[in-house]
């Protein structure tokens, strides 16, 4: 049976490949992502499940799902002009993705079937830093953490729990890492931008609060406090904390192995230790 080797949380800022190159290997971005990459390499996954919020690269308003499962052998991305990261084909695992989709729908999670799809920076950028060889198959799980109405934090946690159960019910003896990606407080190109910037961190205190609750493993309190108004007040992609909450549902409750808040961006880097073999 499959085992969840651990959880990882990272941001996906589209400018980070360029900024990291400009900062050099000892810069802050490479340092934080290096910690996450080391955690991933310790977890040694055979497959990565990446829970992300699409920003109009996979979906459009025409059909924008609350939850979706990417089911295909490969997928192309990032298709949204990420500097230093031309689009490429990523390898995925169609059989496992189809199994996860069946498991989720059978447990009453009304996910969309997604195939023949492209992705944007929210999937590309984490993989740029975490698996630069692009050698581990990746299954994207899409969660709407951007366009209200968003799934509630409790629903996202339950979705993650069902995802975790479906992963562990997979018949192959493989190791799986679940990644949640996104910000805790971030406004992109909206009225809550900081002066002169193309983004803002409207509620740093909330980002600190989320970080503290994740550090101590108090997901229950996090779900109680992460209401839709609270998330939206933290910025127009404040709902991306739901990607982390779903990841925590899959990996299981517990303290973070480590978590580092990058204040200037309102997001964090973290790792959780998963199932013991």
């Amino acid at each position: 049976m499959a085992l969840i080797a651990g959880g990882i949380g990272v941001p996906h800022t589209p400018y980070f490949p360029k900024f990291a190159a400009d900062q050099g290997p000892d810069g802050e971005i490479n340092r934080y992502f290096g910690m996450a990459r080391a955690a991933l390499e310790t977890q040694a996954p055979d497959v990565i499940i990446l829970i992300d919020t699409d920003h109009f690269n996979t979906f459009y308003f025409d059909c924008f799902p609350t939850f979706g499962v990417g089911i295909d052998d490969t997928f192309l991305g990032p298709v949204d002009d990420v500097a230093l990261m031309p689009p490429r084909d990523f390898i995925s695992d169609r059989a496992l993705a189809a199994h996860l989709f069946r498991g989720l729908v059978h447990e009453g999670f009304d996910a969309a079937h997604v195939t023949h799809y492209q992705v944007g920076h929210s999937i590309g950028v984490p993989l740029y830093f975490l698996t630069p060889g692009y050698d581990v198959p990746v299954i994207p799980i899409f969660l709407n953490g951007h366009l209200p109405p968003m799934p509630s934090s409790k629903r996202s946690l339950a979705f993650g729990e069902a995802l975790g159960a479906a992963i562990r019910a997979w018949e192959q003896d493989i190791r799986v890492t679940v990644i949640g990606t996104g910000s805790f407080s971030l406004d992109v190109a909206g009225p809550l931008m900081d002066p002169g910037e193309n983004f803002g961190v409207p509620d740093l205190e909330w980002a600190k609060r989320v970080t503290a609750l994740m550090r101590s493993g108090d997901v229950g309190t996090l779900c109680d406090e992460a209401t839709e108004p609270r998330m939206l007040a933290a910025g127009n992609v404040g709902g991306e904390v739901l990607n982390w909450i779903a990841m925590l549902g899959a990996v299981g409750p517990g303290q973070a192995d480590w978590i580092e808040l990058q204040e200037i961006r309102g997001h964090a880097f973290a790792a959780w230790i998963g199932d013991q073999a």
Partner: protein
Amino acid sequence: MSIYAVNRMCHQLMHDKNWRWAMQTDPERAVSSLDLTGEERDAILSGDVGALFLMGANAFLLGYLTRFNVLGLTLPVYNERMRAVLGKPART
């Protein structure tokens, strides 16, 4: 819901390089091909991203206008116009 066309116009700035080029080089002509209200067209051509936001356009997508330097929307100009509508009532 004609704000749909405003959002799609922004979306295509990313995903259709021909459209991006058209909007960068002759926005008046490019915009004339869209199914917009007069108010929407005027707001686009004047780069009034705050007004577009209050009409219901998506901020993430509007951001492409400054990312690709369309309609004179340098970052300082975009930032100022968008921040100016903070707290103002949006249409639903």
